């Protein structure tokens, strides 16, 4: 800990006036800070670590009276068995279909709308903003009952199409909001320059706006994909046929049978279902945090 004196004081980065008398006090503070950080890291990280370790344990290891923390050896049987038993492959497939389709739909319909909201002064802006806030806060029970009735009349209960429809509409407000932010960040002058150079509007959009918008489109569609992949409530209400259930539904049913199923298989299945979310976060971590931070600056 040679650099203790060089480190900044709590809450005052860059204050380096370490008075010798305060040195000891500061060392105590540092110890306390590292202790607290360690506790946080255990609280946040341990459950996931435990889930991973459980997925590799054999039934014998799990049932032993004094369970060891680490598995004896890493065996992949739980993953194979889980995929085999719970129709998990089918559920993963259903989730993939639903998430990909609704992502494509959301992207296609939010792109022109986002452009209009960002580029034209229109009353719709205020309404859209209000709706986006509202969509974040109202209780879903209120929307699901009439939706259930409407979809039932359309014959879309117990259908992936119905679910795709609901997910598209449900992730639309936020996707729209993200995307219009990306459009707004492209300088309008670039489009004007393109127009002066003789490009028609469609050409300008295709050659100038779309390429610049690509990262935004990727972020927005990943966001829609993951919200559909993770969603549980709508699927629970709208899908009853086991052959059509999405992965969160299949896993929730799996838990219901926790007494019968092996815990190791449950953990393995849970890990498999988390992979897309983890990939998503690995990709977008920086963008998400910086987006939140810039949002915070404006707020």
């Amino acid at each position, binding site marked *: 800990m040679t650099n203790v004196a060089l480190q900044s004081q709590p809450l005052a980065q860059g204050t380096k006036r370490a008075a010798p008398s305060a040195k000891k006090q500061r060392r105590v503070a540092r110890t306390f800070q590292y202790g607290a950080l360690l506790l946080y890291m255990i609280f946040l990280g341990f459950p996931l670590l435990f889930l991973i370790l459980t997925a590799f344990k054999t039934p014998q290891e799990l049932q032993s009276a004094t369970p060891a923390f680490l598995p004896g050896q890493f065996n992949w049987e739980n993953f194979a068995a889980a995929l085999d038993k719970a129709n998990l492959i089918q559920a993963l497939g259903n989730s993939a279909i639903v998430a990909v389709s609704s992502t494509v739909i959301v992207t296609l319909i939010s792109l022109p709308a986002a452009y209009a909201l960002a580029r034209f002064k229109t009353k719709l802006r205020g309404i859209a903003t209000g709706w986006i806030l509202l969509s974040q806060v109202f209780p879903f029970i209120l929307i699901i009952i009439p939706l259930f009735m409407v979809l039932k009349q359309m014959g879309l209960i117990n259908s992936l199409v119905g679910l795709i429809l609901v997910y598209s509409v449900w992730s639309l407000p936020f996707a729209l909001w993200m995307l219009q932010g990306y459009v707004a960040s492209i300088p309008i002058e670039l489009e004007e320059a393109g127009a002066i150079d003789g490009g028609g509007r469609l050409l300008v959009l295709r050659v100038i706006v779309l390429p610049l918008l690509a990262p935004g489109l990727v972020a927005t569609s990943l966001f829609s994909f993951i919200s559909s992949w993770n969603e549980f409530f709508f699927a629970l209400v709208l899908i009853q046929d086991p052959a059509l259930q999405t992965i969160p539904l299949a896993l929730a049913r799996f838990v219901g049978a926790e007494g019968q199923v092996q815990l190791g298989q449950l953990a393995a299945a849970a890990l498999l279902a988390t992979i897309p979310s983890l990939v998503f976060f690995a990709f977008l971590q920086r963008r998400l945090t910086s987006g*939140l931070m810039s949002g915070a600056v404006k707020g």
Partner: protein
Amino acid sequence: MTATLNPPKQKQLKAPKRRSNALGLGGSGGRDTWMLVLPALLPVVLFSVYPLVQGILLGFTDAKAGLGVETSFNGIDNYTKLMTNELFWNSFKIGMIWAFTVTILQFLASLGLALLLNLDLKFRWLARTLALVPWAMPPVIVAIMWRLMLNPTYGPVNGGLRALGLPGDTNWLGDFSTALPAVIVVGVWAGMSQTTITLLAGLQNVPAELHEAAAIDGAGTWHRFWHITLPALRPIAVAITTLDLIWNFNSFALVFVLTAGGPGGQTMLPMLFAYNEAFRYGNFGYAAAMGNVMVVVIAFFLFFYLRSQARSRLS
């Protein structure tokens, strides 16, 4: 529901007046706007606005599940029935305890973590990554993971207690007295990412010069925290706390998979109660009435939020 990012707020009071240019950009766009917005507007109105309005109206009817069942308006019958339903009051009470406790603990824990992550500590990158873990996981998986953690015989929570020589045989999620506290802890875990990142963002916006000036004036750590950091953090803290409160009040998936409302209704959050009414017992109108009551509560939370935002904008 799944926690999403809180929508970036944007003041859009008066956009600078801009004459529309050659491309018509910056103008009102007129018919073009409508053409562009319509593909998004139509599905939203059909599958979002219309059901929402319909849902509110449904709360004043005796609608039941199943086709061919007559539905008629019954005024405030549902609400008088709700007011005398002990189970409803119980779930309402549990919902309030859950929402407030989770939000407050989440705020305090996240503030502590955000302050630590704002310091120049070793392993900060690792802690920052771990702070995002709850956010990166689907709620159903979070619930499954914690069921494994809290498993009475095999779970490491009891295992750890036993290792410390304490009685480690509590059935956390199955025992009347421990179920609600246990799901509250899981709720705090599940929501900590967003609160922490938001508060961290707020902390990074506190001007360092203020702290330096105060330090030169001899203000101690605690003093500076109380008089500089906290006031600067206030607007963002109020925003995230209100949203957390609403999200927690609305939460469903996590507790549904953890306990399904049990044991004996000890963790029956309002959303779970309404879900059971609607889709287990088929009482659509009654469940929608519960939804309306929840909307009123949420509107109440939002009112205080908007008022405090307006106040902080004035000052």
